[in-house]
């Protein structure tokens, strides 16, 4: 929580390093000082930095994320009073991104753990080597390369999934799932590799332990030795790496959402970055950072829970 507080300060200070401000940016070159002052007053930009920080942070805690500058400007120019708050803008996007991340996790985690166990079981065979080369390649390729290769094969050459994920509210679940399949598959490819390698390494690390030797001498099958005896002891590092990769999903999502035009928070973030919509950028940044920190925290807690020796300290 302290970290999150400090991170919010960093984000706020960074944003305020901008030369000039939004008022000048929207009015452009021909701005008169009076009009700039008017907009500044409207947006509260004429107050000191520290005051604004506490206003912003106070609002953040009460989930009042402020008003998007761009939307405010847009609403004013239309003469309407209906302004859209940042929270209104972010909430549906965040839900979409969560949906995508959940679909990805549902595919990637079981797949990665199964493949990791298989690679550990058949280590140093052709299967293991092929998996090693394949995962190393997919870890090191940029997300958009994976995305375009998938588009080429699954959308253009064999039209199985749509290449644009234009999902909207009220869409039936199955259609929504189908439309977000390609982005989810891309993210799966990116994160599975890392998780699988760590699962394999964690299990293989344990194979020299005396209790594994014992289990083998008892005559258990190799599969049983690994699943019953090695896996529970390898859980802590595996959980850790899964949480890390889910945290990674949050950043990887930005590029993938842009490729597939998926209406998620990453897309919103990139768009607001381009038009310098400061409240939205700040809020998105803070949400990303919060998710990142929370997932890391969860990983620590889970790895303590999975280890009886840490659960019951002497």
């Amino acid at each position, binding site marked *: 929580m302290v*970290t*999150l507080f*400090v*991170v919010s300060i*960093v*984000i706020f200070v*960074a*944003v305020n*390093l*901008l*030369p*000039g401000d939004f008022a000048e940016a929207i009015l452009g070159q021909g701005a008169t000082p009076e009009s700039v002052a008017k907009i500044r007053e409207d947006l509260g930009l004429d107050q000191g930095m520290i005051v604004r920080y506490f206003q912003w942070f106070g609002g953040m805690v009460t989930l009042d994320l402020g008003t998007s500058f761009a939307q405010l400007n847009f609403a004013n120019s239309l003469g309407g009073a209906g302004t859209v708050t940042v929270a209104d803008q972010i909430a549906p996007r965040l839900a979409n991104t969560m949906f995508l991340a959940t679909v990805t996790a549902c595919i990637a985690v079981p797949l990665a753990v199964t493949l990791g166990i*298989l690679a550990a*079981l*058949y*280590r140093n*065979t*052709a*299967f293991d080597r092929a998996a090693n080369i394949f995962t*190393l*390649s997919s*870890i*090191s*390729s*940029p997300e*958009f*390369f994976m995305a*375009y*290769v998938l588009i*080429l*094969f699954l959308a*253009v*050459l*064999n039209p199985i999934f749509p*290449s644009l994920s234009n999902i909207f509210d009220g869409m039936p679940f199955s259609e929504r799932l189908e439309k977000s399949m390609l982005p989810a598959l891309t993210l799966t490819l990116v994160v599975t590799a890392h998780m699988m390698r760590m699962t394999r390494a964690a299990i*293989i690390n344990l*194979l*020299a332990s005396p209790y594994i030797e014992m289990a083998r001498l008892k005559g258990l*099958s*190799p*599969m049983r030795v690994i699943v019953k005896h090695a896996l529970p002891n390898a859980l802590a590092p595996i959980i850790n790496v899964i949480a890390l990769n889910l*945290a990674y999903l*949050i*950043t990887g999502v*930005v*590029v993938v959402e*842009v*490729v597939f035009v998926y209406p998620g928070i990453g897309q919103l*973030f*990139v768009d607001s*970055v*381009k038009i*310098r919509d400061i409240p939205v*950028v700040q809020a*998105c*940044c803070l949400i*990303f*950072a919060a998710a*990142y*920190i929370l997932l890391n925290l969860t990983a620590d807690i889970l790895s303590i829970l999975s280890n009886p020796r840490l659960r019951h300290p002497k």
Partner: protein
Amino acid sequence: MSGIMGFAIVLAALLLGAYVFRVAGQAVTKNAPTFRDMGFGVAFGYVLGAAILVWAIWYYFQPKVLETGVPNAGVVFFRWAVQGFIIAAVAAFLFRLLGRHVGTAGTRKLFRSMPLTASFGILVILIYAFVAVFAGAIAPYGQAEILGAANVVAGGDPALGGNPEYPLGTDQIGRDILSRLIFGAQNTVGIAFVTTCLAFFIGGSLGFLAATLQGWLDQLLSRGVDVLMAIPSLIFALLLMTIASVWANKLGIPLTIFMVLIIALIDSTRVYRLARAVGQSIVVMDYIEAAKLRGEGLGYLVFKEILPNAMAPLLAEFGLRFCFVFLMIAALSFLGVGIQPPLADWGTMVRDLAPFINFAAFAPTAAVAPLLAAGAIALLTVGVNFVVDWMLHKTSGLKE
């Protein structure tokens, strides 16, 4: 639905095949140990591998053009992939063979124990370095030169919309793609390399300093790094790049310089962590104590005592860090805030050329350009990763 049914039938056939394979093997070899102790999973693996091999060979020899006259794009891409894979394997093998017979005794020994993937990685890195250094001499046209025809398709076949003067075609405003790919090596790889060096200089020296001096400096730096690391790196980079782009306009400094500084700053936090951890285990050694008693200064301690002993992990980290920096620059360029035109850059090229992919079903060569740019990024990072993987494996002495 038929897809799922087909999958189930194929799976059932494979399972049956595996069973038959094992029983037949036991019968033919009169219960030899290989077949007697074979698990069902292993038998299934053999059968699956054989089935994939047979399918691949069958698919490879499918006709390139369907009877309706439409090109069979899947087959074309598959053939390219297979040919590329074979060429890569042969090149790596020849390169390793060359390394085993040419060079000093040390390098020959190194090449003898090298897996094929690592020699492939080294070959790729050498080629990229060569292309990056001599880009101006190799490229047929300038990187920002706008030529006569736009949207020329790759392949150089006039019947398909190509032009032999531009073997890989031209982009949407008529720049030669081959030249831009070659210059992209210079720009993207060069900038990534400079950034990584800078990140190592900042992170490494601060990390060693923190490890040697300890006390409040260590606390201050480490907590600061903790905070910076709590923000996902791509997000933080995007945020800072927005701010930098405004400053760059105002001050008239190229945005690329800001990008190098920002990414170096973000990545130096990761280097700092490693350098500090490695440094901490070194400063407790007796030879550091001896050097301190001799009255050596801080600079001597850091650069002459700690640095040489921390070289192996730092070198492996350098490779990995380079990949991350390279991918981050590519991602930023892809999102439109990285390396700015008119400089040729692979990330920007992918973004600009991406719509061509949609024509792949009609003209496979049209989709080549964006995939080549993205593939160029992927190939280098894969190569570096192969080498780093091998180095780590070698230095850690893992044999399992």
